[in-house]
Structure formats: C-alpha cells, structure tokens
C-alpha cells in the first residue's frame, strides 16, 4: 500500500517537475517576444526616444548650439520641453554632443562665452568653465564634466536621446 502510494507520488512528482520546468522555459522564451511586441508602447512612455536634431553636414569642429523640443509625458501630464546641446566633431571626426547644463547649479554654458577663454565652455552664472571635451576646469565651481547625449546617426541626420553623466574627471 505504502509502496504503491510512493510510486504514484514519484510519477506525480516528475509530472509536476516537468510542467514546472517547461513552464519556466516557455516563460523565458515568451517574455522577450512579448516585450518586443509591445515595444512601441513602452518606448512612447519611457521618454528615452531619440529626436532628430540636425543634419550631420552642418557640423564642424566648432561647437554649435542646437535646440529642439520634445513632448515629455509624466504619467497623465504632458508638456513640451525644450532641450539644447553643444555639438561638434572631435579630432577623429567623431560627433560629440554635450549637454549645456552646468554641473554646478544648472545654468546653460556657452562655448567661448568668455573672451578670456575662447576655447572653453563658460557658465555665465558663477564663472564655471569646461574644456572642449566637457571636462570641468579645476578650481572653478563645477565638480563634474558636462553630460554627454546618447546619439545615433540615421540617413545623415543626427538623433539625440538623453544626456548621460560621465565618469568623474
């Protein structure tokens, strides 16, 4: 009696185990598929989409400021937010897109904004300065380099995403 009972429960055990493992495997396969299927929905609300900013042909070694507007959705509240970036080509002709937001208190920095430092970014609020690559100049108020935008080039147009902080200078 007890032997028989054991046999059944062993089979049941295997059944349950297989169903369980199979279920996990199915979930593992399906989850990314579902994620891909509803990806556009997730993208629209995450705010991490890329915005077209400028034609790549307009870029040069001299940093230029570009403004663009995005629609920011915070739950039920939608607002237009203007964003800016300083964009230039570095020595290897690679695009660099820096956020103009000063790491001190959030003013907008200007390239060559102070005639004493024509090859630096200058913050008009409290005289913070950054080198061309965005690194903060020591002994000025900012304590971190300027953020860098996520960027991608599609069909000759530069798309910018969110600014990302860089490692400590």
């Amino acid at each position, binding site marked *: 009696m007890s032997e028989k009972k054991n046999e059944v429960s062993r089979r049941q055990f295997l059944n349950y185990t297989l169903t369980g493992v199979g279920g996990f495997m199915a979930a593992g396969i399906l989850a990314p598929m579902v994620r891909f299927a509803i990806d556009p929905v997730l993208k629209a609300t995450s705010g991490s989409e890329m915005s077209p900013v400028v034609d790549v042909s307009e870029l040069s070694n001299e940093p230029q400021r570009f403004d663009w507007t995005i629609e920011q959705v915070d739950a039920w509240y939608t607002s237009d937010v*203007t964003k800016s970036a300083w964009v230039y080509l570095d020595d290897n002709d690679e695009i660099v897109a820096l956020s103009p937001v000063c790491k001190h*208190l*959030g*003013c*907008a920095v200007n390239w060559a904004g102070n005639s004493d430092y024509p090859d630096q970014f200058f913050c008009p*609020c*409290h005289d913070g300065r950054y080198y061309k690559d965005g690194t903060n100049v020591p002994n000025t108020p900012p304590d971190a380099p300027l953020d860098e935008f996520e960027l991608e080039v599609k069909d000759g147009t530069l798309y910018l995403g969110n600014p990302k902080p860089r490692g400590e200078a």
Partner: protein
Amino acid sequence: MQWHPDDLQGFFKAKEYIDTVILPITSISFKNQAEAEKLAIQKKSIEIITQELERNYAGRIFVCPIYIYQHAVDREQEIARLNSWTEEMLAEQFEHRFIISHDILWKKYEKQFDSHFIWTPSFSMSNFQSDDARLFVKEQTNELSELIRSYW
C-alpha cells in the same frame, strides 16, 4: 529655479548662489474680445520668455510665478502693492530684483518701482510653435540676459 518643489529643494541647498529674482507681471480683462485676446497672448509670451531665461540661468535666477493684476487697475495702487511684495518677500533673499512685463502702461510709472522694471515687446502672433516665434524668443532672451548680467 522656479517655484517648483524640486527646484525649491535645490534652492534651499544653494541659496547663496541665487541672488537674482524675476517677477513676471501680466494683466487680465474681459472688457472686449480683442483686448482679452491680446492680453492672453501677452501672458503666454511672458511665460515663454521668462521660462527660457530660467532655463539658461537656472543656477542664479529665480523666476517667480506670474503676478496677475486687473488691466484697468489704479496703477499707483498696484505699484504700492508690488513694491511691498518685492520688498518684504524678496529683498532679504535676492540682491537683484526685476519686474518684467509686456504692459507698456507701466513705463510711465517706471521710477516708482523699487525693483528694476523691464518692459519688453510681446509677440503679436498666436502661433507659438512657428520658427519666427522661436527666433523672436531667442533674441528677446539674449537681450534680456545681457541686461540682467550687466547688473551682476
């Protein structure tokens, strides 16, 4: 900085750096449609211009919420109120105080303001998304910030 919970957190942490305040003022009137529409555009315009200023000078300029008055108000009385406002609420904190408006009628009373009064032209178009409007705002904010910086 703006009158905004997140900004205020930053403001109380970095108070000593924020020495400039802007109070945008604009009026309301329901007397006739043309005037009402004009004033509505002015309100939108002053909002956009001061926000753009704030975006560029967030670390030193505090932009107050817009002050609304009746268009047909007794101007001298309103100035007394504005002065007590700027003196009592703002003088302790901010060294540089600016009142900014599109309402040309204030120009005559300019000397009576305790703070610096700036009149600036409004845009006349109601399409704020157009490139012309964007350029207009850009030029306005450039000139205004130059003026404000000359006081620093």
